[in-house]
């Protein structure tokens, strides 16, 4: 007969307030197999855990049920407590009488009945738990960082510093990401390239960091400690070793294309380097626009190249690599402005986004750093900045605040005034949110020193009139309508995740929230980990944030990855599927439902009536199995059983819960 101990937690008043725990304990003592029922104000505290440990020994308990908060909170804690007392940790069950009972049912009588039912269910399940042993598996001491913006670069450097191999994969031809596009950074007005380029060079020369630019993730398999990733190194059509970076090829190349790096404001060639400080400083042939690849004509670059580095025959390479940890740092995109016709984006060249403004004021930008109106290349006098374009907009854009626009718009106002002392910046805002270190002071300098006019109210309409732009707004503090004649209108567009973030999320097996940002394991307590063990998050791919936060988070993600890689072996979760070979008929209906391809065929031989018989059965690779249980449900004879959630346990729970 089982010897089960039930330990009821008051959780201060969180549970005790709406559940009559005395009755619960009294009823627990009458449940089949229960030999002890005790309680404590805080079962997860030192005293509580000591009570459990001592009772296990004194009462020779072989099962433990803790009626407390959600197993997602302290299942691990109470398993460790049981293990400390010599009881197999998988003989512990948790009854969630806080989140699923005391906190959501106000009527004490009802809540008490429900708590009793939940305890009875946990006891029924615990009675059928089996002791499980976690086995160990090796960790591949190599990390993968996806995305080489400032987040990816920082993570790669931090991991590389500890001596672990790091593969840094970047989709575009050069590392640097969004930060490389910026001119100055707030709040110190450091030149973005001056603080970024040294790190980019560090990455390029770092002995432990292998750089894969112009490459993408093709497939991800495996699990923490043993990820198997297929990278697609797209063909650059340039031999890296030979190329000296002299640039003659992209000078002579005849075909011009809108430059992505310049946000489409200036052209680049079909063979190109995104920006002067690119790392690696090796051009790439954009095969969709190169006349050689599209029409078998031209080939000028190959002819003029002094180092004969151009190689049209190069093809994509698929590289398969094993990793112990993955850091996702894929960065952000900007909101699509088609929904916001009232701002007139796309209808007039002088209506630009803030990123385009960054390029215009950037020395390596399309206008060589001279801020000129795209329409007539004249210096602008009156520049209107509009906050929250697509942000804080429940109906057509994103409901969240993009967090950095208030600061970079203040920066733009300052840069404008520095470039043209006679110019005037107008900023239409709803609320100025400058909550970081030195941020508020930075904003006040924009207003007080640089004379930016802040108008509270979002612009209603922008439309061209003559060679100027008419901006209709309102100042809700003075309740006056506002009509400005502007030379330039800059839209602070909302941040969004990468367009293909959801697809990458599915490939990695990490969740995305309603807006397609990657979801962290716990918003407050585990901000840099994803729900999937071994995959960490850094930067704006998880939500809007600025560069200081991104770098801090990249350091955090790197620290988590290093902690994982520093282990020789990892404990595997023993709650995996288990095949009862006598029941298994070898129909393998389970094989296709396994998302991790952990099931394979096995031929076994057995003696039946003296005759040697060979037959097919299913076999589980315990390392690959992640314990979802899809196979147990697909198995008709019930041969496949997910340990920890076996058929016996779940049936017992259903029987107990319906009493």
């Amino acid at each position: 007969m089982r010897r089960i101990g039930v330990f009821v937690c008051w959780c201060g008043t969180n549970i005790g307030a709406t559940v009559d725990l005395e009755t619960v304990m009294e009823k627990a003592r009458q449940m089949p197999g229960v030999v002890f029922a005790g309680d404590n104000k805080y079962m997860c505290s030192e005293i509580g855990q000591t009570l459990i440990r001592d009772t296990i020994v004194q009462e020779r308990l072989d099962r433990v049920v803790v009626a407390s908060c959600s197993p997602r909170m302290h299942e691990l804690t109470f398993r460790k407590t049981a293990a400390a007392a010599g009881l197999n940790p998988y003989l512990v069950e948790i009854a969630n009488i806080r989140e699923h009972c005391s906190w959501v049912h106000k009527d004490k009588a009802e809540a008490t009945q429900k708590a009793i039912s939940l305890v009875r269910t946990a006891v029924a399940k615990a009675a059928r738990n089996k002791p499980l042993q976690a086995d160990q598996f090796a960790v591949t001491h190599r990390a993968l960082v996806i995305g080489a913006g400032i987040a990816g670069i920082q993570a790669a450097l931090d991991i590389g510093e500890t001596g672990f191999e790091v593969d840094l994969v970047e989709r575009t031809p050069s590392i640097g990401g969004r930060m490389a596009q910026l001119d100055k950074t707030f709040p110190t007005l450091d030149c973005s390239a001056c603080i970024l380029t040294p790190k980019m060079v560090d990455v390029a020369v770092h002995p432990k960091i292998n750089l894969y630019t112009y490459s993408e993730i093709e497939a991800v398999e495996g699990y923490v400690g043993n990820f198997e990733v297929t990278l697609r190194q797209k063909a650059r059509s340039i031999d890296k070793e030979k190329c000296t970076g002299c640039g003659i090829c992209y000078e002579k190349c005849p075909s011009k294309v809108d430059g992505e790096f310049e946000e489409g404001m200036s052209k680049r060639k079909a063979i190109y380097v995104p920006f002067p400080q690119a790392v690696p400083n090796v051009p790439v042939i954009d095969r969709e626009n190169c006349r050689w690849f599209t029409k078998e004509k031209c080939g000028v670059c190959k002819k003029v190249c002094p180092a004969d580095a151009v190689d049209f025959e190069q093809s994509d390479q698929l590289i398969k690599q094993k990793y112990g940890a993955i850091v996702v740092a894929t960065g952000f995109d900007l909101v699509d402005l088609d929904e916001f016709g009232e701002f007139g984006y796309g209808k007039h060249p002088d209506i630009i986004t803030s990123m385009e403004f960054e390029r215009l004021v950037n020395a390596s930008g399309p206008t060589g750093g001279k801020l000129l109106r795209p329409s007539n290349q004249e210096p602008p006098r009156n520049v209107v900045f509009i906050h929250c374009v697509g942000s804080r907009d429940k109906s057509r854009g994103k409901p969240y605040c993009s967090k950095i626009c208030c600061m970079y718009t203040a920066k733009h106002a300052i840069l404008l005034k520095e470039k043209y002392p006679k110019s005037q910046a107008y900023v239409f805002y709803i609320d100025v949110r400058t909550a970081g270190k030195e941020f508020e002071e930075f904003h006040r300098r924009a207003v007080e020193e640089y004379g930016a006019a802040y108008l509270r109210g979002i612009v209603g309409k922008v439309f061209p009139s003559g060679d100027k732009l008419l901006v209709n707004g309102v100042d809700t503090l003075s309740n006056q309508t506002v009509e400005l004649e502007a030379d330039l209108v800059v839209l602070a567009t909302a941040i969004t995740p990468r367009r293909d973030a959801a697809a990458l999320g599915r490939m990695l097996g990490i969740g995305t929230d309603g807006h397609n940002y990657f979801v962290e394991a716990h918003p407050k307590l585990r901000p840099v980990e994803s729900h999937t063990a071994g995959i960490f998050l850094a930067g704006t791919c998880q939500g809007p944030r600025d560069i200081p936060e991104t770098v801090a988070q990249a350091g955090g993600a790197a620290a988590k990855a290093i902690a994982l890689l520093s282990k020789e072996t990892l404990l595997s979760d023993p709650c995996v599927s288990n095949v009862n070979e006598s029941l298994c008929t070898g129909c393998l209906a389970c094989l296709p439902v396994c998302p991790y391809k952990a099931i394979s065929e096995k031929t076994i031989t057995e003696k039946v009536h003296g005759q040697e018989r060979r037959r097919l059965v299913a076999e589980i690779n315990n390392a690959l199995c992640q314990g979802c249980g899809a196979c147990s449900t697909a198995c008709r004879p019930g041969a496949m059983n997910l340990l920890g959630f076996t058929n016996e346990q779940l049936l017992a729970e259903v029987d107990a819960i319906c009493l």
Partner: protein
Amino acid sequence: MKAMLQKIRKEAASVLASGEADLVLGWGKGPLWWQSYPAFIEEEKETGSLTWDPFCVPNLSKYLLEELWVKQKVALFLKGCDALGFNQLLQDKRVDREKVLIFGIPCSGLIDPQKVERAGLHQGLHSVEHQGGELVFSYKDDQKKEDPSSFYYDKCLTCRHPNPVVFDMMLGDAVAVNPQERFAAVGELEKQDVSERYRYWERQFSRCIRCFACRNVCPACSCRECIFDLTDPRWLGKANVLSENQFYHITRAFHMAGRCVDCGECARVCPVDIPLTSLNRKLIKDLNELYGEYDAGVEPEKEPPLITFNPGDPAAFLES
């Protein structure tokens, strides 16, 4: 009919003589007019006892589960519905295709003995035969000719694959295929309201005596040990009460979901005539509607609907 019988005996004899097969599964004639039982022939001389008449309905492929352990190669005769059943066993990896030699028999429909009795033709009946388009009933000293259409099994009227889909040699030329609508009965039941339907099935399931004939004859039901025979965990109670009968029939129908070849054997062998075909056909109809046509037993390599998916699947519930 006679021609087919000669071919069956000839082929059986030749494979046994040549040693190509060490067992032939066919049908033998029992003492009563409707009895055509599965015959296990190992000697060439016994092939003379093989028969072929409108009552050779039992599906021979399920006997392979035992025979293939002890025999090197088994030859057997498969009608259209039997071949679908064989393919389902193949899909479940219960038979080794190399160890089986299949003679396909295009089948123009078999005769339901109960319908003969209901027509009162069974008194002193010796044998029944297809001749030309007619059914010949021969008695001690006279004969009657009838139109066969009112005597076919229900399952033969809706048969969509009378010509076997898997064979090594076909013993006759293909027959015409014009099945009646097979979801008519399901449609009728669907028209009733929920409680009316519940009472209908309550009457059916309460008659079940849990003899498991339906499970034993079904080609898609080939588990070494059936979940309903397990005691720990005890899925199904042994007691013959409505609730347990419902659990059995709903679970078994669900085990067949997407795998039932609609051969109609379960309904035929049920001693208390529970319309099991309607249960299976409801699932076939729904799965076809929801996730695309899937004809179980025709292509064994194609994955049945319930163990595959595609992200854009529709759902029969509100996916808010």
